[in-house]
């Protein structure tokens, strides 16, 4: 009989399944849950985008595209990054269309990592960076960002994390789960430290369009001296409510992008063709739709942040993405205890901060990809839960 332990890669086996898997399974099978738990927009993909996808199917545009993606789409991406963030990328040589931002992260890390290379990862952050680093043979070096710094990477923290072996820094801003962003000045300070090094920056800017309080997103690649070392990653899932279409892209200087494309070519071939046609329409005609969605998120954001603070769960104002990240330290519970008890007693689902790294302890992530009415209901139930905690 085969001993599967012997045939599976030790690197893969060493990657622990997320500790909260069980909690997730319970939450996802429970009925009538009032959830603030999901990381994807509630809005539908804008109609004109769906229509463009349908049209491409009617035209039988269902074959492989070029490895890098449709030329027309790469051209639109080039126009878009210039228009939105002031950075020019050559659609022929510096842009790759990928299967979601996730693939771009994987390909970029694989393209640069030698065994033992250190990859600096700020946490709390999205869950994929650490395991992908390990799969690529790299060693994750974690920066534990802090609430009092609005979960930014500070110059001191970066300096401390850098060693001889540092290959890359991941910048996950605007940040899931903290809602933190890195502004122009913040990025300039990091750029100063990185100049004259060979450290690559993998900037995951998937939430770039979802910033609030009239703050316009600054791309890491737009900072002087940063473009040459940055792999800029973005995608369609969050901005255009296109999670299921699985489409993203990477922009980088040609020598980097060529090697990333090489892996993509062998592993993936090309991103889904229908999604690529739809994405062209998204970039061309959805500014108004996106603006309306951001306005709606902003109302929800204000409601949920005020709600948590009124309940005594200190919540900083998230400046980007669509999550509130309140502290639950006042309850004396761990993040996981809080979430489990809340789920069982009130059927409200939120995600423990620890799902995003150890430094998420003491926090919960509440998504506001829900209607105002839904958020009010959930806040009310969380209020009841906190009352009951006090009285027990």
């Amino acid at each position, binding site marked *: 009989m085969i001993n599967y332990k012997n045939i599976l890669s030790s690197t893969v086996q060493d990657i622990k399944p997320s500790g909260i898997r069980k909690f997730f399974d319970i939450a996802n099978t429970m009925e009538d849950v009032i959830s603030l*738990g999901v990381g994807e927009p509630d809005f539908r993909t804008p109609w004109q985008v769906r229509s463009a996808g349908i049209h491409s199917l009617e035209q039988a545009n269902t074959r492989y595209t070029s490895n890098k993606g449709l030329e027309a789409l790469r051209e639109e991406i080039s126009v878009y990054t210039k228009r939105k963030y002031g950075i020019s990328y050559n659609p022929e040589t510096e842009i790759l269309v990928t299967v979601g931002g996730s693939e771009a992260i994987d390909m970029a890390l694989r393209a640069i990592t030698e065994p033992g290379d250190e990859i600096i990862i700020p946490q709390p952050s999205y869950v994929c960076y650490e395991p992908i680093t390990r799969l690529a043979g790299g060693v994750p070096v974690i920066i534990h960002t802090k609430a009092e710094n609005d979960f930014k990477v500070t110059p001191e923290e970066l300096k401390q994390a850098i060693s001889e072996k540092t290959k890359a820094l991941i910048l996950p801003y605007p940040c899931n789960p903290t809602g933190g962003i890195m502004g122009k000045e913040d990025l300039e300070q990091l750029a100063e430290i990185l100049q004259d090094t060979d450290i690559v920056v993998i900037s995951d800017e998937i939430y770039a369009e979802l910033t609030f309080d009239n703050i316009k997103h600054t791309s890491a690649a737009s900072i002087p001296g940063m473009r040459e070392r940055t792999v800029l990653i973005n995608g369609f899932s969050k901005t255009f409510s296109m999670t299921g279409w699985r489409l993203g892209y990477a922009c980088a200087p040609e020598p980097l992008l060529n090697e990333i494309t090489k892996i993509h070519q062998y592993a993936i071939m090309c991103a889904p063709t229908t999604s690529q046609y739809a994405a062209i329409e998204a970039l061309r005609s959805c500014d108004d739709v996106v603006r309306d969605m951001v306005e709606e998120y902003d109302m929800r954001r204000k409601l949920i942040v005020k709600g948590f603070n009124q309940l005594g769960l200190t919540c900083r104002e998230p400046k980007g993405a669509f999550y509130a990240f309140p502290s639950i330290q006042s309850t004396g519970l761990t993040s996981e205890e809080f979430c489990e008890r809340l789920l069982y007693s009130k059927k409200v689902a939120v995600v423990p901060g620890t799902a995003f790294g150890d430094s998420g302890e003491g926090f919960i992530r509440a998504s506001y990809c829900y209607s105002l009415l839904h958020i009010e209901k959930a806040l009310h139930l969380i209020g009841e839960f906190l009352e009951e905690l006090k009285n027990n």
Partner: protein
Amino acid sequence: MNNKILKLLENNARMSNETISAITGLTEEETKHRIENMEDNGIIRGYKALIDWERVEDSYVSAIIELKVIPKARLGFEEIAAHIAQYPNVESVFLMSGACDLCVIVKCKTFHEVSAFVAKELAVIEGITSTATQFIMRRYKDFGIELSSADDDGRGNISL
């Protein structure tokens, strides 16, 4: 700011002043004051529940009735429109461009009641030259809400 309040109330007339103030950044007192002002000067005409009567046993029959009308000198369509608007089962009266002049939406208990209303009340009004009644058989979307769509949006309860 008033526009923002109106949009919020248009989506949910039962939204509390507390919630509106959290979203707009106004104080609760000011929110209350602004809403009362808009009620007083007729911008907010009332608050109604959006009911999917098809889900209720005691349901209604609705019809759209197109009327052709000879307008009166000086008064145009106003007099007839105002007259029709007084019937309690008339939900809406619109002046239209195109083939018909007035469009009336009525809500009655039964088909019979609608036909009786058209035959005995509308058709006999002086100046109305023809009526065309179209019954609403099923509502898929009304008040801007998709009535047939499922509540579950397929996202599950939790994901990273």
